[in-house]
Structure formats: C-alpha cells, structure tokens
C-alpha cells in the first residue's frame, strides 16, 4: 500500500494551551481513516494543520510527497475539503457554486462545465442544477458540499463531521457515497463523533482526547483490545445500590451513569441469571461497540 499522508508528532497550542499534542497519522491510499473525539479534542485543529492553514510548533508533515506547510498550496490542489460549517455561496445556483469553486483550483471553465453533470449526478442534485442555495434542504447542502470537494478530482478528501445535523436517510446516502469514493481509490480522512458512522465507514481510526491520540486501530481491534466483549445495561431507581452491592461480583468492570449501570462481561449468563431474580431492575445485553471503547478511553464527563 502506498502512503499518501504522513504526519509525525504534530504539536499546536493556543494561548499556552495544547490543542494538538503529539498527533501522528499515516494514511494509506484508498482507505477511510476516522478521527474520533469529544468536542474540543483537537479534531478540527488537526485538519487545519494538515491543510497547511496553520503552522505546527513541532512535527513533520508530508502529503503526496509534498512538505506542508511549505508546499501547502500544491498539496491543496489535490485535496478536497468538506468543512464542518456550511459555506456554500448563497448568491449562486447549485451549478454556479461548482463552477466558481473549480476556478479557485485554476481549472478552465470548459473543464469544470464538463465535470458538473457527473458531480450533480453523484450528489443526487441533477434536478436542482439551477436552484439557489437557500432553497436547498440540509441534506442537499451537504451533498453539494461533497460534490464541490470533488470538483478538482482530488486524491485525498478531508471531511469534518460530514453528517452532523442530517436525518437518517440523508446520512445513509452520504455514507453510501463515501464508500463509493474509497472504492474509486480516493483516500478519506473523516472526523466524527458518531460512533456508528465511524464503525461503518472507517478502515482505521484514532481516538483523540485533549489533543492526544489515546488509541488507533481498526474498529474491530479497538473493541477487542480495549473492552470486554459483552455489555449488560441495568436500569432502575435502585441501580446505584444494586451496583455497589453486586456488580463487581459478576462483571469485570462496571460504571454507573445516572440510573444506568454498564456492566462489562466476558460471559453474560451468570449476571443475567442473577438479574432475573432481582425485582425493580430492567436490563438489556448487547455486544460491546465503539461507543463503549470511546467512553472508556475519554470518560463520561461532559467536555465543555
């Protein structure tokens, strides 16, 4: 596999506070790589460093064999970006947005015009070609932003929370399109705080917390390495008392959050048998997932 992006030990701080603290990422061609982390973990700052928009205090970064930020301009010629906040041009139609954006890459109008039908087809927006931006739905705007990121036929695409605020139908359509892009050999770098999104899409992912990478692997391996295979969630008003008295006996690890106890176990049977005999407690059991790993590594405290 060929390496398209290599970031080693990036550091960035604002006003003495470390925002990115020793992040290292290597992207292989054709993979989808996820950056997960709570708000303020440094995901967006990492993307801005990779784009060469801000300078790291320390670290090495090369994209498609170009040193960044020194050659950031040349690197950005071959990168597409889907930003977190919508920044389509509200005065323009759908097609004009693509045309004007393509010009920033130095593409001649004829070349952009030739690409527009396929881009609109990809975004399911062929019927909206001459419609102004304010009349589009949130999902349509995201799809157009994705199409806009492809106008220069980039090798690498950065997506900063591409499905935040979308309904399930719109999210599924975006996911399908992102899979098509990796099948075409594009490399994706995605930030998200939706664990199901990361688990479905990402070949590999890193969990960021307070600017540091706390884990990196395939979703499956992260779950296998960091957490017991099964989770039993116990609910009820007396759950706190029950957990203090019994949970440690049946579970490797347990956490109480509000009126729920999360019990992490190898084998669910002894705990389920015990719970059947308890009155006033409800419960469910399921395989451990990425969210369990995420919460174990980054904690349950709010980050604001």
């Amino acid at each position: 596999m060929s390496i398209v992006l290599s970031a080693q030990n990036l550091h960035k701080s604002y006003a003495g506070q470390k925002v990115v603290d020793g992040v290292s990422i290597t992207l292989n061609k054709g993979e989808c790589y996820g950056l997960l982390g709570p708000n303020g973990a440094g995901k967006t700052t990492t993307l801005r460093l990779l784009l060469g928009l801000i300078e790291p205090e320390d670290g090495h970064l090369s994209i498609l064999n170009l040193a960044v930020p020194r050659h950031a301009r040349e690197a950005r010629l071959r990168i597409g970006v889907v930003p977190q906040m919508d920044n389509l041009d509200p005065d323009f139609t759908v097609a004009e947005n693509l045309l004007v954006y393509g010009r920033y890459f130095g593409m001649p109008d004829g070349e952009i015009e030739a690409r527009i039908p396929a881009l609109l087809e990809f975004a399911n927006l062929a019927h909206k070609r001459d419609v102004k931006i304010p009349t589009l739905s949130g999902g349509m705007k995201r799809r157009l932003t994705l199409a806009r990121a492809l106008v220069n036929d980039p090798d690498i695409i950065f997506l900063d929370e591409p499905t935040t605020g979308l309904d399930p139908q719109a999210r599924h359509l975006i996911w399908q399109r992102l899979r098509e892009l990796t099948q075409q050999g594009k490399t994706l770098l995605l930030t998200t705080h939706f664990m199901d999104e990361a688990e479905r899409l990402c070949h590999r992912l890193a969990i960021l917390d307070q600017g540091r990478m706390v884990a990196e692997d395939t979703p499956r391996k992260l779950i296998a390495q960091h957490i017991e295979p099964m989770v039993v969630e116990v609910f009820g008003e007396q759950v706190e008392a029950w957990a203090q008295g019994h949970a440690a006996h049946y579970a490797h690890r347990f956490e109480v959050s509000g009126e729920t106890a999360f019990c992490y176990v190898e084998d669910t049977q002894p705990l389920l048998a015990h719970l059947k005999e308890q009155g006033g407690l409800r419960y469910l059991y399921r395989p451990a997932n990425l969210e369990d790993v995420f919460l174990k590594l980054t904690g349950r405290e709010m980050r604001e």
Partner: protein
Amino acid sequence: MASHHFSPPRLSLRFIPIWRRHFLVWRKVAATSIIGHIADPMIYLLGLGYGLGSLLPQMGGTSYMVFLAAGTVCYSTMNSASFEALYSGFARMHEQRTWEAIMNTPVTLDDIVLSEILWAASKSLLSGMAVLGVIWLLGLSGSPLSLWLIPLSLLIGLCFAALGLVMTALAPSYDFFMYYFTLVITPMMLLCGVFFPVAQLPPLWQNVASALPLTHAVDIARPLMSGALPPDMLLHVAVLLGYTLFGFYVSLVLFRRRLSQ
C-alpha cells in the same frame, strides 16, 4: 502575534477567480447597484448645488455646482470602497464563511485580501464613472482632462478599500463599523474640501486635513474637472498610494492573526 504574520504579502494571479466570483454576484444585482451609485451623490450634488449654490455665486473661482462636482466624485468613490470593504467584506469573511471555503483551495489569504481591495476599488471605479457621466450630462464639466477622474476613482478606491479592511479585520460585528463611518469617514467628508475649501478651516484643522487621504484626492480632482493640471500632483498620488500600501499590509497582518485563531 507570531513572526510569520509580519512576512511581506505573497502575491499571485490567483486573486482573479475571487474577483470573478464577486463580479458574478454583483452582476445579479447590477441594476439596483448602479442606481444606488448614482442616486445618493446626485441628491447631494443637486440639493446642495442648487440650494447653497444660489446663495454662493462663486467658490474657488468657479460656480458652486462645479466646485461641488469634483468633491462629489471623490467622496462617493470613497464611500463605495468603504462600504464594500467593511460590510460586504465582513459578510464574506465572517457570516457566509466564503473566505474559509476559498482557503481550502490552493488560494491563500494574501490572494483573498488582495482580491477584496481590487474588488472594492472596482466598485469605486464604477461609481466614479457613473457620477462623472451625470456631471457631463449636466454640463458641469466639458474638459477632456476630467477623464483623468476615472483612474483617480480607482486610486481612491484602492486607498479606502485598504484602510477599510483594517477595520474589517478588527471588527467583532457589523455594529463596529458605525464608529468608522461616524469618526473617520464623515469627518473626512467635512474636513477635506468636498463641500468648501480647506482654506476656510482654522489653521490647526487645515494641518489635520492635509494629512488625510481624501484631501489629496480632492486636490487632484478639482483642477482636472475645470480643465487645469493639478499642482503637486505626484505628491498627492504618492500620499494615496502610501495609504493604500499601509492599509493593505496592516490589514493583511491583522487578518493573518485573526484567521489563525
């Protein structure tokens, strides 16, 4: 502020697609925009020109209307560039996040700031031509030298666009611009010889006026309008260019700082 914020501007031709973007937006509202460029200066020119002009038979050796015509070209081009650099520039930088979208492409912030100045100056050029056209139609000037007011409009535009962008770079919100218009633009209109000669001011204020860019613009425009070559023309042009370069560099440093947060 990091040291690389102070590096000299790196200019490239990549400002052109941004200028074309602004032009495409403007084309959609061109008719109302041109009416706006003409209506406001004409109301002042005709209102003050006929009203005050009937009381003041002569000013600076010409009729008051002709005197006022040159000042009107200067302050209306100043206003066009200032409004564009402040309100529209702020909308593109802050509200619509247009700059953010552009910076994700091979275009840099330096290109963007250059394009903002050139675009605002383009609007001044248009505004200057529109006002000059009406002045010719009214027969207030017939000298071929008055054609030089067209490139002068561009120069005034560059100057006030660059100065205005310094405010845009500092502005937390649109309300901030009120200070600039009330404390800078309006006093300049009154001090710089637009409505009456600077020589009418007390000596202290004459000195203040001589440091302000609009005074130098008016000093070029007024003789040209009545068919004479302005004295000290190179000095006046140099002052306007100096303010342009100062505004461009300071605004660029401030934008670099603001957008790297």
